[in-house]
C-alpha cells in the first residue's frame, strides 16, 4: 500500500482514476448509501486487494427449498400483518401466563425491578429527558412509550421468549401475552383501552395503535424508504458528523476537564496487566460452587437449621416438588427462616441461579 499524503489527495486520487501507469488500488467513490465510499472491482483489484475477476455466471450450488421448508422458516411477522399466525388469546389469559413464565425476570406487570428489561411504564413525554446532571430522570423506552410497531412484540415473544426456552409458546399463548403486555402499556385498540376480556387475534391486530409510531427518522416506509435513508446520510449534520479540523487555539465552548465521579469497577476478571503464573486452574469447577461456599454453606451444609442439606437427596426431592421456578423465587425472596438471597443482596439473579443449580445437582 502506498502512502498518499493528504495534502495531495486531489491529485493522487486523480492519478489513480486515470491510472495509465500501474495502479495499486481500484478507484473509490463517495457514493455509498451510508454517505461513505464504495470501491470498484476493476483491473484485478478491489481497493488494495487483488481479486480474481473471472466470470462466475452459471456457478450454482445448493438446491431449491421445498414448499414445507419455506413454510417452516418464513415465519416473520410484519407491521402490515403479513405472517400473523392463526390463534387468539385474551388479556386475562396473558396475565396468567405472564405470571408463570415471565414475571420472574420482567417484574409484576412488566414493571421491571429485577434487573431484566422493563416492559411497561413511563411516558412518552419522558423521551425528551436528558440526564445532564446527577439525579435526573432517564427517558423511559418501553413498549408503550417507544416501540413503533406491535408486530415486533408478538414476533419477538414467539421467537425469543421465554428467555431460557425460546419458541416454546403456542400461538394462543403469544396472542395472549401480546394482549396482556399491550394492555399493561395502556395501548389502545380501535381507539379503546383493552380490558381483561379483550381477545387479540389476526382479525383485530391491525387496529392496534402504537403511540410512538412516528417517533423515528428517517422515514423508511414506502418505496422511497431507502432513498430517505440515503438523503439522511448525505448531510453529516443529521447524525453528528460535525467535527472540524482545527489545529491551533481551537475553541470548545468553555470545555473543562470532567473526571470520573463514581468509578465503575465491577469487572470480571478483575483488572490486571501482571505477567505471572496462575497458581491453580479452577476452570472445571461448577460456576455456583464458590458462591455456595461463601454465602450458603453456613446453613445448608447440614440440616441442623432446618435448611435442605447439600447432598441430601430426600431433602431436595421434597424441595423440588414445588417446581424449579418457585424454589428459585424462594431462594431469591426468602422463605421461612431462609433470608432473601441467603442474606447477601449483592448476589445477582444469575449468580443465585447458578448456586441453586449447584446445590440441586449435588443432591441427586
Amino acid at each position: 500500500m502506498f502512502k498518499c499524503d493528504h495534502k495531495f489527495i486531489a491529485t493522487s486520487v486523480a492519478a489513480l482514476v486515470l491510472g495509465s501507469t500501474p495502479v495499486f488500488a481500484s478507484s473509490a467513490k463517495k457514493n455509498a448509501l451510508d454517505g461513505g465510499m464504495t470501491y470498484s472491482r476493476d483491473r484485478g483489484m478491489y481497493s488494495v486487494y487483488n481479486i480474481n475477476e473471472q466470470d462466475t455466471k452459471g456457478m450454482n450450488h445448493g438446491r431449491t427449498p421445498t414448499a414445507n421448508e419455506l413454510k417452516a422458516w418464513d415465519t416473520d411477522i410484519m407491521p402490515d400483518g403479513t405472517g400473523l399466525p392463526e390463534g387468539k388469546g385474551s388479556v386475562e389469559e396473558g396475565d396468567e401466563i405472564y405470571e408463570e413464565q415471565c414475571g420472574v425476570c420482567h417484574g409484576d406487570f412488566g414493571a421491571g425491578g429485577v434487573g431484566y428489561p422493563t416492559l411497561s411504564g413511563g411516558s412518552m413525554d419522558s423521551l425528551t429527558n436528558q440526564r445532564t446532571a446527577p439525579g435526573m430522570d432517564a427517558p423511559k423506552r418501553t413498549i408503550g412509550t417507544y416501540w413503533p410497531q406491535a408486530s415486533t412484540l408478538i414476533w419477538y415473544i414467539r421467537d425469543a421468549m421465554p428467555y431460557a426456552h425460546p419458541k416454546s409458546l403456542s400461538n394462543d399463548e403469544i396472542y395472549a401475552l401480546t394482549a396482556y403486555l399491550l394492555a399493561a402499556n395502556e395501548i389502545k385498540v380501535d381507539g379503546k383501552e383493552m380490558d381483561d376480556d379483550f381477545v387479540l387475534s389476526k382479525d383485530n391486530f391491525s387496529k392496534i395503535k402504537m403511540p410512538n409510531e412516528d417517533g423515528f427518522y428517517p422515514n423508511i416506509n414506502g418505496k422511497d424508504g431507502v432513498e430517505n435513508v440515503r438523503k439522511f446520510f448525505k448531510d453529516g449534520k443529521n447524525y453528528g458528523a460535525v467535527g472540524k479540523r482545527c489545529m491551533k487555539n481551537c475553541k470548545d465552548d468553555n470545555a473543562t476537564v470532567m473526571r470520573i465521579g463514581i468509578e465503575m469497577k465491577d469487572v470480571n476478571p478483575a483488572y490486571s496487566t501482571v505477567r505471572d503464573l496462575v497458581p491453580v486452574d479452577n476452570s472445571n469447577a461448577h460456576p455456583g460452587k464458590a458462591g455456595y461456599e461463601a454465602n450458603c454453606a453456613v446453613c445448608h451444609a447440614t440440616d441442623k437449621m432446618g435448611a435442605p442439606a447439600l447432598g441430601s437427596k430426600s431433602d431436595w426431592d421434597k424441595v423440588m416438588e414445588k417446581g424449579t421456578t418457585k424454589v428459585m423465587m424462594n431462594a431469591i425472596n426468602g422463605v421461612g427462616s431462609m433470608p432473601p438471597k441467603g442474606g447477601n443482596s449483592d448476589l445477582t439473579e444469575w449468580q443465585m441461579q447458578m448456586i441453586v443449580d449447584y446445590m440441586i445437582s449435588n443432591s441427586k
Partner: protein
Amino acid sequence: MTKISKASNTEIVQSTRRDFFRKTAAYSVSAIAATSILSADDENITHHSKWGTTLGDELNKNPYGLPSPYEHNNVRRTTPLLSSAGDMHAAISLTPLHEQEGIITPNGLFFTRTHNGVAQIDPNKFRFMIHGMIEKPIVLTLEDIKKYPSESVIHFLECPSNGAAEWKGPQFNSLQFVKGMMSCTEWTGVRLKTILDDLGVDPKAIWCLVEGQDGSEMSRTVPTEKIMDDAMLVYAMNGEALRAEQGYPLRLLLPGWEANLCVKWLKRLEFGDKPWYCKEETSKYTTLTASGKAIQHFYPLEVNSIITSPCPEKPWTSLKKGDMIEIQGLAWSGHGKIKLVDISFDGGKNWVEANLKGLVLPKSWTRFSYIYKYEGKPLLLASRAMDEIKNVQPTVNQEKKIIGVEGVYHRNSICTWEVKENGEVHNVQMRS
C-alpha cells in the same frame, strides 16, 4: 570461565490479583532503582535461567496452541453493568485493547455480544436459505457455500454501543471498557453478490431481512443495495473457522456497519419491498436524540480513534523526564479509509498530525504513531481522526449538541486521557 551456580534465580511470582495501579507503581520504583545503581549486575544475565537449563515441554503438548501461561491477564472482560441482572447470556465481553498489537485481533480475544447465549451449531446440520422476492430461492449447506470463490478482507467490527456508558461523563478508568466493544479480523467468505447474481433478485426488493438461528433469532432489515455492494457470508476469521462466539459456522459481514447488523449463526435472507421492524432496530439500536425522536437504521460506524498507549491500564509511571516514547493508537471508520489522525497534548486546544503506520485499508483499524519526549508534566492527551469522506471526529460538546446524552449508540466523540505528573493515566472528558 567462571562457574555459575545452576540454581534457578527466576522466582515466579504467584498471582494475587492486586490492583494493577499498585503493581505498576511498584515495578516502576524497582526500574528506577535498577538504572540508578549502574554497577549492579542483573542476575537474569549473570545466572543461567531456569528455562535454559531444563528440557522444555513436548512440542505438541497443546495440539491447538495456547498463549504463554504468563499472558493469562490478556483476556476479554465483562461487567454486570452491561448485562441484564448480571446474566451473561445477553451481555457483552470487551476486547483488551491495551494488549492489542497491530490491527488483527486474535480470535480468542474478539469482543462478543449475544442476545441468548452462544449457540453451538452442528455444521453438518447447518442450513442457510435465501428466498423472498427472488426468482430462484435456494438452500445451501456449509459445504455448498465454500464451493463459491472465497475472498479475504480485513475489517473491524464494532458494537454501536461502544463507549455507551460514557455519554453522561467518564465512568470506567480503562481502555478496555471505554472502547473494547470492537475488534478487527481478516474475514474469509464469499461475496453475497457472487451468489445472488444468478438468483434474480426482484428490483422492487429494496430490503432484505437477515435472521440468525440462535435462541434469540436475532434479525435486522438491511437495504439490498448494501447486500449487493460489499456484503459477505463469512465462515472464517484469521485463517480458521469462525469461533462459536462469532457465529460459527456462518455470519453476515456488512463492512463498516453496526456489528449488530452482521448477524451471527445466520439462518436466512429474505428479500422484500418493506422493512421488517425487528426488535433490534426498534426497541434497541435506535438513537434517541434530545428532541424525543430517534434515529433508526443508523448503519455506519463513524470515524473514530483512541490512544492505546499510554492508557489507564498501560500508564507512563516507569518513564523519567526526558525519556523518548511512542504514543500509539487505533483509528477506524465505517465510511472508508482513515486519512489522518491528529494528537493534542492540551485537551484539544492545539493539535499536531501523527503518522499512520502499517496497512491503511478501507473500514479497518489503522494504527497511528507519534514519538514524544516525556517531560514529566501533566497532559491532556487526545486523538482526532479524519476519514476518506473527510468526516472529522466531533468534540464531546459538538456531539452532545446534535444527539444529546441519551443516544446510547454511535458515540464517536474525541476521547481524552489525563496523564498525571506521576505518569498515571485517567479517563476524562473535555466538556462544558
